């Protein structure tokens, strides 16, 4: 009964979304206030109904109602509660319902928090949001209904793919989807602006917080996925340039560019057309990601279903929205007036460089991801494009971006002074140089370029600190005065510095672990010792154990360093009951130096009690995910800045503002 109610709620939500897509837009067209006023209550009603549908499915999972086909296929009564709940979105149908839930959530947020938006703009934004929701709800109801029943009901479910039964992965999809779908708000704003034929600084001011929120979620979602792959897949890697990873990374790159170009638009009314286009492209890439992952064009852990009907449906959505948006853009772009002038060396100029590099990098990732598909379609040749391609194309494009990054915030709007900026960065440059020399002096292995890569990360980190120091006149004014100034800085200034600092941390982590990883593959018998990166591991043997829904064989390794006991690692090989699938659980010891990472392989039939063992030492690898968290916190700081709150802009105050916000 509850399940049917959920199904019914979803159908009602579709009806509401149809109204939301048509009435406010029509109202904005004919200037009818009553029609436009339909938007906000419709968006909130839609949210309530979709939440109802989602809860109904969740209920079916929690009580293990196997008469629901979706639950039967993806759940099992012996599964822990957390994974029964995360199982809701651990499959194709449920994850699309989560997608629609996120859409409704963002739509309702615009309705609730957007009461100071101009009436027609809000009406159009909600209408576009409604239209996107209609498309995806139709998709669910017509091709991927999670509520369909089975008769007779099976006694037990088939279970969830065990490698998905993991805390980080339980929360990876909600964050990722919040990011993808959050960009739909920027998209809706862009379409609304094109419909009205008007974009200005105020528009950018409204779009930025939504873009920032979506970007933060996506940052966290991607890094959770990477973290999961690192410890769960047992290969010691954290990013594989897998097409599915790229599908989430491309909207992130475009969204990062959008975040920066919106700043230029807000402060200087320049780059209007570009920003609108970027808003469309960012959400288009999100949709394309959904298509690539959901259509079965790519087969991987993320591709739940290989059903051509679904692929064609999503392709239709893709063509409708991307094609429609770009056509509207082409029609209306002439009506958007170009904004302020600026010199190449200026804040605007630096942000344009940022945008150029990020979007070009995004394009190279796109080529690498789609090329195998295109080549197979054209010639039938099957190829794979792996990490060497991406390292060769993406890497060189990130290099100038990171070198230039610290200069950006030091350049004035309109016309900047590169020499003055360089002077304020001297301390950061000296620190970077010292760190580089120290790395060269201490580390004698690895590629000779690697210390320069570390230096690049340190440069970005110290550069972002230098910005705060300079703005608080640290060292130039007395200390209490500096403190007062620092406290007086807008939160968005801290947000920028913190987020950029996170980028630097991530670069150090990436270079550190890629260049200096140690790896050993060997066969160990009980009592055997192995050395790696200064640690000595003694294998104590392996013993079988029983978990809630799996059996496992747990290996025990005593770890010492310079004769002192450090820890014991217990990597295991699990065999789940349902479905009966083996997984590898790595044993990981975390220290400030890096991660000691042990994987237990197969028992060796030709060696008594011997096991294949893989050992890794991944220096500084934690900085990658810590960096992502710091970037997220930077975004949070920026978001909490009062000046970024959605509200009516006061242009006079904006222009006299002594310190432009980032």
């Amino acid at each position, binding site marked *: 009964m509850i399940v049917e109610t959920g199904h019914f709620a979803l159908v009602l939500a579709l009806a509401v979304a149809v109204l939301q897509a048509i009435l406010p837009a029509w109202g904005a067209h004919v200037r009818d206030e009553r029609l436009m006023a339909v938007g906000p209550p419709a968006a909130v009603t839609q949210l309530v109904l979709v939440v109802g549908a989602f809860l109904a499915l969740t209920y079916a999972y929690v009580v293990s109602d196997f008469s629901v086909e979706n639950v039967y296929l993806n759940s099992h009564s012996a599964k822990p509660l957390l994974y029964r709940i995360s199982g809701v979105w651990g499959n194709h149908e449920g994850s699309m319902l989560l997608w629609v839930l996120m859409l409704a959530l963002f739509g309702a947020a615009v309705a609730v928090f957007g009461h100071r938006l101009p009436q027609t703009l809000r009406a159009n934004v909600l209408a576009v949001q409604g239209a996107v929701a209609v498309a995806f709800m139709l998709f669910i109801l017509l091709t991927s209904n999670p509520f369909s029943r089975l008769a007779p009901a099976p006694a037990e479910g088939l279970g969830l793919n065990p490698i998905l039964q993991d805390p980080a992965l339980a929360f990876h999809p909600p964050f990722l989807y919040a990011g993808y779908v959050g960009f739909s708000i920027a998209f809706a704003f862009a379409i609304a602006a094109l419909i009205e034929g008007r974009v200005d600084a105020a528009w950018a001011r409204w779009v930025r917080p939504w873009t920032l929120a979506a970007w933060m979620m996506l940052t966290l979602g991607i890094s959770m996925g990477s973290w999961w792959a690192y410890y769960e897949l047992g290969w010691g890697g954290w990013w594989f340039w897998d097409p599915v990873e790229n599908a989430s990374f491309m909207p992130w790159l475009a969204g990062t560019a959008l975040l920066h170009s919106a700043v230029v638009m807000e402060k200087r009314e320049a780059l209007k057309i570009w920003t609108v286009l970027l808003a469309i492209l960012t959400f288009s890439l999100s949709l394309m990601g959904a298509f690539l992952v959901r259509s079965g064009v790519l087969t991987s852990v993320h591709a739940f279903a290989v059903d051509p009907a679904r692929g064609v449906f999503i392709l239709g959505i893709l063509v409708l929205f991307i094609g429609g948006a770009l056509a509207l853009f082409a029609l209306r772009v002439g009506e958007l007036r170009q904004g302020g002038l600026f010199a190449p060396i200026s804040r605007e100029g630096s942000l344009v460089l940022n945008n150029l590099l990020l979007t070009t990098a995004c394009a190279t990732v796109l080529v690498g991801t789609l090329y195998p598909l295109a080549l197979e379609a054209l010639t039938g040749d099957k190829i794979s494009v792996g990490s060497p*391609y991406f390292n060769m194309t993406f890497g060189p494009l990130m290099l100038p971006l990171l070198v230039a990054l610290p200069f950006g915030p030091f350049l004035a709007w309109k016309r900047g002074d590169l020499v003055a900026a360089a002077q304020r960065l001297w301390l950061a440059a000296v620190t970077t140089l010292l760190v580089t020399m120290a790395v060269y002096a201490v580390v004698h292995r690895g590629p000779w370029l690697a210390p320069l890569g570390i230096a690049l990360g340190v440069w970005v980190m110290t550069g972002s600190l230098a910005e705060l120091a300079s703005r608080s006149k640290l060292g130039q004014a007395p200390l209490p005065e500096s403190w007062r100034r620092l406290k007086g800085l807008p939160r968005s200034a801290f947000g920028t510095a913190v987020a950029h600092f996170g980028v630097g941390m991530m670069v150090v982590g990436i270079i550190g672990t890629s260049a200096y990883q140690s790896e050993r593959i060997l066969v160990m018998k009980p009592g055997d010792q192995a050395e790696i990166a200064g640690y000595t591991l003694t294998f104590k043997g392996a013993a079988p154990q029983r978990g809630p829904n799996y059996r496992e064989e747990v290996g025990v390794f005593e770890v010492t360093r310079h004769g002192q006991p450090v820890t014991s690692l217990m990597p295991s090989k699990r065999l789940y009951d349902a479905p009966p699938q083996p997984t590898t659980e790595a044993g990981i010891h975390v220290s400030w130096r890096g991660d000691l990472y042990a994987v237990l392989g197969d028992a060796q039939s030709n060696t008594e009690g011997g096991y294949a063992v893989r050992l890794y030492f991944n220096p500084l690898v934690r900085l990658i995910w810590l960096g992502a968290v710091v970037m997220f916190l930077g975004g949070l700081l920026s978001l909490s800045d009062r000046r970024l709150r959605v509200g009516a802009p006061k242009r006079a105050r904006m222009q006299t503002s002594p310190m432009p916000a980032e």
Partner: protein
Amino acid sequence: MSRKQRRAVLILACVGLLGLASLLVLFALRDSIVFFHTPSDVVEKGIEAGQRFRLGGLVAEGSVRRGEGSLVEFAVTDTVKTINVVYEGVLPDLFREGQGVVTEGRLDGSGKFLADTVLAKHDENYMPPEVADALKEKGVWQHMGKPQPATN
């Protein structure tokens, strides 16, 4: 600088960057893509020793042999032709006889395939798409959904 000059600088920067990126992409695509072949392809097309490619098919029943240390030998087959593979390392969880596999490496002079990567798969039902397609072409594809007893 006039508006025109500024625009010229911007356009030059765009064109320059795009040109550079295109060059990078072309070079990278030429050097770093890896072709996929089935054992029949390898025999028919006469692939040279030392050339890097991916070999995919089924792990032949009864072919897995463990050598010194973590050295392992097995045969990859598309049921028409079979190629022997040598690999040193830990095999992925779902590596089993009779199941689909993709390996990456090169042929040595004697026709053995020296693999440095055996691809991990995420799901026991999962068949690498290349392998599935290749087996369909040979007319021997079937859904690999049934769990099979581990043989190692």
